[in-house]
């Protein structure tokens, strides 16, 4: 992936920036799919765990590996690390394993083709992100997965989500495929073609109100305790 090795450093930069901003009230993490891999995640019961978050598949299935997994070079280019690929109209769902609320600020993704495209400027489709809050309210965002580059391959891109993607109980990721009629998924014409790879999902646990109160009491207690000897 030589010329695009800058991908990872960009991702790390974003992570650091976000972590710095978010630090005062939450533990921000980047889900990099680097532990306990390679793995295969099939619905309904397979779950991938990292940093307290659980990733599962609702449809299709998921593969976690480097691009060595791709026999026909289908993987999006530009990511030398392990990542999750959601295949056959796959839908990825992310929850906190203890059902904490969380926020998601961004992620990296690329279109997963069935084979080498080999033509420049081929439009891929979109990745769609749906967050479900504790209230049942939903927030939605979609992003273009980009077109093939001059080498005829799709690439990983970095995406940022609005600040409304907080207070979430779950987030799901799906994709659709660009056709002459729009962006489609699951129809006979495009069956199994909605596929994408995702990596570096930037999330942060939002402390529960009760937790904030307890933490505040704890801090007060700590300050009191530290003062005590001076008296």
């Amino acid at each position, binding site marked *: *992936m*030589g*010329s695009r090795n800058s991908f990872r450093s960009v991702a790390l930069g974003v992570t650091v920036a976000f972590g710095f901003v978010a630090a005062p009230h939450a533990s921000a993490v980047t889900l990099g799919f680097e532990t306990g891999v*390679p*793995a*295969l995640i*099939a619905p309904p019961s397979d779950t991938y765990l990292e940093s307290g978050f659980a990733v599962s598949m609702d449809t*299709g*299935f998921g*593969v*976690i*590996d480097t691009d*060595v*997994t*791709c*026999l*026909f*070079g*289908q*993987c999006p*280019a530009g990511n030398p690390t392990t990542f999750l*690929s959601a*295949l*056959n109209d796959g839908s990825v769902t992310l929850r906190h394993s203890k059902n904490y609320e969380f926020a998601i600020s961004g992620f990296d993704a690329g*279109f*997963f*083709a*069935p*084979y*080498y*495209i*080999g*033509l420049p*400027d*081929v*439009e*891929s*489709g979109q990745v769609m992100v749906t967050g479900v809050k504790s209230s049942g309210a939903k927030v939605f965002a979609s992003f273009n997965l980009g*077109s093939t580059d*001059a*080498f*005829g*391959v799709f690439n990983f891109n970095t995406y940022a989500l609005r600040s409304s993607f907080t207070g979430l109980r779950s987030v799901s990721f799906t994709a659709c*495929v*660009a*056709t*002459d009629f729009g962006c*489609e998924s699951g129809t*006979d*014409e*495009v*069956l*199994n*073609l909605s*596929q994408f790879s995702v990596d570096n999902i930037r999330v942060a646990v939002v402390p529960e109100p009760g937790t904030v109160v307890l933490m505040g009491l704890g801090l007060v207690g700590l300050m009191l305790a530290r003062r005590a000897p001076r008296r």
Partner: protein
Amino acid sequence: MNKFKSILPGMLFALAMSANAQQADRKSYIVQLADAPAAGYTGQVRGYAATKPAAGSKLKVSAANVQAYVGYLANRQSSVLATVASAPVTYRYTVAFNGFAARLTAAEVAKLKANSNVVSVTVDEPRTLDTSRTPAFVGVSASGGLWSNGIKGEDVIIGVVDGGITPENPSFSHKVDAQGRPVASHLPGTVVYGPAPAAWSGACAAGPGFPATACNTKLLGARKYDAGFLNSGLVKQPVEFDSPRDVDGHGSHTSSTAGGNAGVSAVMNGLPVGSISGIAPRARIAAYKVCWLYVGSDLATCFPSDSIAAIDQAVADGVDVINFSISGTRTNFLDGVEVAFFFASDAGVFVAASAGNNGPGNTVAHMSPWLTTVAASTHDRLLVANAQLGNAAVYTGPSLQNTGLASAPLILATEAGAVGASPTAVRLCFAAEDNGGVAALDPVKIAGKIVVCDRGTNARTNKSLAVKAAGGVGMLLTNTTAAQTLNGDAHFVPTVHLASSARDAIYAYAAGGAGTASLGAGSQASGVVAPVMADFSSRGPNLANSSILKPDITAPGVDVLAAYSPDAANAGDIANGIYPAPAFDIISGTSMSSPHVAGMGALMRQAHRTWSPAAIKSALMTTSTGVKLANGAVDTDRFGYGAGHANPNAAVNPGLVYDAGTPDYLAFLCGQGLLNPSGATCQAFGFISPWNLNLASLTSDVLGRQTMYRTVRNVSGASATYSGSVAVPGFTATVTPSTLTLAAGAEGSFAVALQRTTAPFGAWSFGDLVWTDGVKSVRSPVTARSLALSAPAAVEDTRASGTKSFSVATGYAGSMKATPKGLVAATRTVGTVVTDELKCDASFSVPAGTQRVRVALFDSDTTGKGADDLDLEVYRGNTLVGSSGGATAEELVNLVNPVPGTYTVCVVGFAPKNGSSTYTLSSWVVSPQSVATGSFRVAAPTQVATGGVGSVAMLWSVPAGQRYFGTVQYTDGAAANLGSTTVYVDTVSPVILQAASSSKAMLKAQAKALQ
């Protein structure tokens, strides 16, 4: 901008597996580097001008730009070699291949594979040699044929990469005698060749048995390459010459078939057998010896590292055509030899290579689209003669002699036995060598007589040798059963081979010894059915990519009479100008058919100086003619012969050609994922599907429907209108547009669309596309297979834990299920085998429902560590069900859906180092009862669409240090079995070995056929 869905073609997947990379001992590897070699360099490096020759011209190695670029390559090679500084380097290559051959450890292999300047690292697995009337049979010597029009290969240079050459054979002489017949170059005669063509810059490498004077203006040059061979630790047989001199006979045979002089009188076993000629008898020859006879084997061995060096040099020397009658890869387009031919082709050199002698199985070798792969078929030479008895009875049978024999006393061998000889040895006319060194026939009874000998047990020609040794003058060879063949062998005394139906009458007449017989001179029989594909000729489809038809073409390769090496030659005598008498032999193989096509390539090159190798190949293919079955019916199996039987008289004026060059082949390799898709090459040349490579053959799998695109060029010299028609059984086939009007030199493009109607899933259909202007017919084979599912046949990996994801394409709509079986760790069996021993002490049970069996030997699992030549044979009961006869101990046998039973594996000690090898055999049985090691899971799409695709992924985790095998079986969710993918996880070998062809099986079959 294109929408993703709109650019999806009806897709199939080429299953080119990349072999990946661990092992302590040094082994020989060929390392390819990223820069183009000089023959293909087009000027991308700042400061270095392009060196690739223009169409119709040749690489000038002495030119300043070439020398500068070669120097640049050498520096770049040195910097890569500096990373593996302790590795002994065997060769450096710069002309037709950029890289080097070196002996590397597993760690060094890994290091090189991680180097961005390294394109590939492949094992230097040794290869074997694959083994007249044919100029008349292919038509070139006929009235109106190419020879009569002055097309005889004049000033065209044929490079023969083989086992060397016997320079004293008149086939390779620049002189003729007073009667105008070729005479050995060291004898007095008139020189009939001018100076070497201007492009020639080769050399004559003198050595034992090959003085500098051996080269002449016919045999322009000769070189030898043995560094790779010597590296292997093998020892040359004492009869070998450390020079280009041919000892084995094979190189002289192929050289004379391609470009040997016309009118050379051939003598075999002391009897004249007519005159012989090469297909391009005025071509010049350059010999490159890469095959060597070694202690412990009768079969010469040829190392790819030596072959690449020879090809590299041949291109630099200025040859126009290369013949390569040596086995090769069946699966790897980036094999070093194939890559060297890629750049040879880029430099305008036409390459003919043998398809392999492992038929009739699907084993075709040299499957790259840039070379011409030649199958072997029969020709129509059958000399028959009458045997007339004293009672006037006449019997006719094959007889390879043209002198006849006057009346002489006739005696039954059964009445002429030596004292003490067994009746069987006497009846069968055992020569001394068949009978413990003692002659079976009595000279007193036999001297001056014609002897009646029965067929059976010993070699047929040994019977006439026994007759000759006892002073006999002729032989009647009688079959004993109606099922036995009749053969025109080269006997030691004039012989007629007779059917069993004549035997009783001959025995009745000759009994008592009072009879006489005479033999007529042999003459060509009429009504011989030919060409018929040889059983041994390796068949398609192409194992590297089934959308590239292979073999391309067939030519005579059965019982070909050509120059050979004399039984004994002495370097000291030769140094004093005393050469052995020239020798000739009749042998069979795709080795013999390939030089026929190389010779035709030389004729085409003379006629069309600027045509590309692809245009020459196209012309040969589209004008080829039909092949028959033995019963005279049309042979419809394209995988035997490709386009058909080569017909050079028509090929020289084909009307249209399908041309292709380096940009097309690079786009093809990029489309296969074999070159870095983000690299400069794929960026520059793009990606094309294999079925759209502009070949004269159209070949594809069809998932419901498929369209293939082609471009033709009018080479007739005048404007012409061609109309096209296409038909393929089981498909609706259309060609659009159906008319092409093309000015001289103009190109036209068209599409061939196939829509499945009744073609059964999984079977290949053979059809034709024909463009005709009313006079010329430009015929292409169209080969299509309707599929319900297209999935990779095999997945390989060297990681102990990993995933593989791949797409499958479907030709039906509905549900789909994938079921994993395995992974099964190898069962390991230790044994010891000595030279020529068949060690059969490994056996296993195959239960009902077994999907796959795999049996393998690895060099690293033998005491010779690469220096042992061991083979494998697998038997069910007494039935041979699989065998592998490679040139070392890297052997692999795969059985698909094997019949249940007990199987036995025999290890053959073909040539173990120092006479003995202790080995560990690996075997895998993937059955319902198999016990899996570790974990192995598969996920697949649940629903699929007609003409659609879906992803399949597998995950495995196994303990390192072993080799594992398993399968993934695909069904439609109900009962229908749609196919399978095998999974091989080798956590031991640094590079997974790919199967290559070998001629051993055919040699064994031939030994049997001589009886």
